[in-house]
């Protein structure tokens, strides 16, 4: 029930590169998994509110107090590329 185009579209949404072989594999595997998951459509969920989490807590707030965080060098220590304490990335906008 999942075709190659759907796989490619979902992969694009997730920014996930896939080889042609993976596209075929996921087409079959996702179809199979979703087939098993169809059982969800059988359940009577009329009048039931969806729950997003298992916590009994809601709207946890805290005072907005400025506090020290980590120095930039510490947070950038794992960065693949950086310059002058900034993360360095490929150009996001093309030249006009």
């Amino acid at each position, binding site marked *: 029930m999942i075709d190659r185009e759907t796989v490619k579209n*979902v992969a694009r949404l*997730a920014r*996930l*590169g896939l080889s042609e072989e993976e596209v075929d594999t996921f087409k079959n595997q996702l179809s199979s998994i979703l087939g098993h998951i169809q*059982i*969800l459509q059988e*359940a009577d969920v009329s009048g039931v*509110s969806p729950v997003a989490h298992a916590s009994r807590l809601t709207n946890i707030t805290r005072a907005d107090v400025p506090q020290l965080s980590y120095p930039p060098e510490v947070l950038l220590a794992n960065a693949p590329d950086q310059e002058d304490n900034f993360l360095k990335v490929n150009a996001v906008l093309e030249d006009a």
Partner: protein
Amino acid sequence: MAKLYTLSIHEAAELLRQRKISSVELTQAHLDRIREVEPNVNAFTLVTDDLAMKQARAADQRLASGENLHPLTGIPIAIKDVICTKHITTTAGSRILENFKPPYDAAVMERLHAAGIVMVGKTNMDEFAMGSSTEHSAFFPTRNPWDLERTPGGSSGGSAAAVAAGMAMGSYGSDTGGSIRQPGSLCNLVGLKPTYGRVSRFGLIAFGSSLDQIGPFARNTRDAAILLQAIAGHDPRDATSSLQPVQDYSAALTSSIKGLRIGVPEEYWVEGTQPAVVKVVRQAIERLRDLGAEISLVSLPHTKYGVAAYYIIAPAEASANLARYDGVKYGYSYRDTSEMWEAMEKTREFGFGAEVKRRIMLGTYALSAGYYDAYYIRAQKIRALIAQDFEKAFEHFDVLVSPACPTVAFKLGEISDPYQMYLQDVFTIPANLAGICGVSIPGGFSEGLPVGLQLLGNIFREDSILRTADAFEHDTDYHKQWPGNL
């Protein structure tokens, strides 16, 4: 004296306190054991032997002073590699984090260091905690100490194997759908998933944020109580962590379950469960009855939807959580292009393994326009129904009992179909969806392989399941067995 690595935590703590042994001796015994059996087991992604010896010497000084002692002071512990350890490589079992050194400790590590543990290493796992066998580790599979041809379970398989093999006295893992209880079951350990919100997730690399919870592995219930006590409690940095006061778990171990109301869920006896597992668990239930518990059947009618609802919700959350791995801030980065989107897509193509990709795809699909209501919202409604099943059951019962896992440890490579692997968690998933606590304990053996008994408790009633586990342990010697052919 018995070999030091075979001691329990509570026995070792007493010997350390009386200064009959030192933490340096105890730690050396475990590092020796690692040298001896780790080449066959492969439980660790990193053995931190220098750090361990340094911490052991500090623990001995603390023990000598007699001040500020904790039951875990000087005790060798292993940590699942999904828990951030400051300046110590934390991979989550993934190529994408192969060289990642966190700038901070997870909240549980802060607590454990304050207690004075000795960390012997970081343990192997399925990539980003997605899997039930450690075969989805980007590095290597871990082997089950009970049978090296078989899996220790997963995703916290390394943490389980390390304790089962005597390479650590206790360990910590994470459980999103069964990742502590299933390997606990396959490795003959006490593996406990606390109530959602009992333990801070700050510094736990996220998989399914509404489901994830850190918990301990131990070789007996008293040790599990100590290990849980050390990490339980509120942390303002995790908004889902609870202010509910923490119970005294060791005090809950009264060794009596007379009059305790134990329910046996009718829906947990499903096709696909190995007859040997059913037999062992039925015998264990009879033993609980003999110990004075009141046993009766209970219905959890929405159980059959659990795995399906989970495999929408957990991948949906994972697809969002794993969006952060873009090759920009940390981790593996594809550099061989100047095009931004291509760099990001290739980073994720080469950085993630097959199971992680599968779940990102499944989650993204379930959240995409046109499928959101049919899959994601519907799964969340079923999640509400499953939680209600448990709420009703716990009006009449203190503890529910079932198999922890439908099978004993399976052979590495035996399960290749993704959905068949997902079914390993059929009995453990509902507790994560409902946020209740659960523990797998040594329930018996089938042809030399361990069978786990699962005990489920209401929210914040870890005392009930630990008390039941302890009483069962007093009446059995399964937990005292060691893997013979290591």
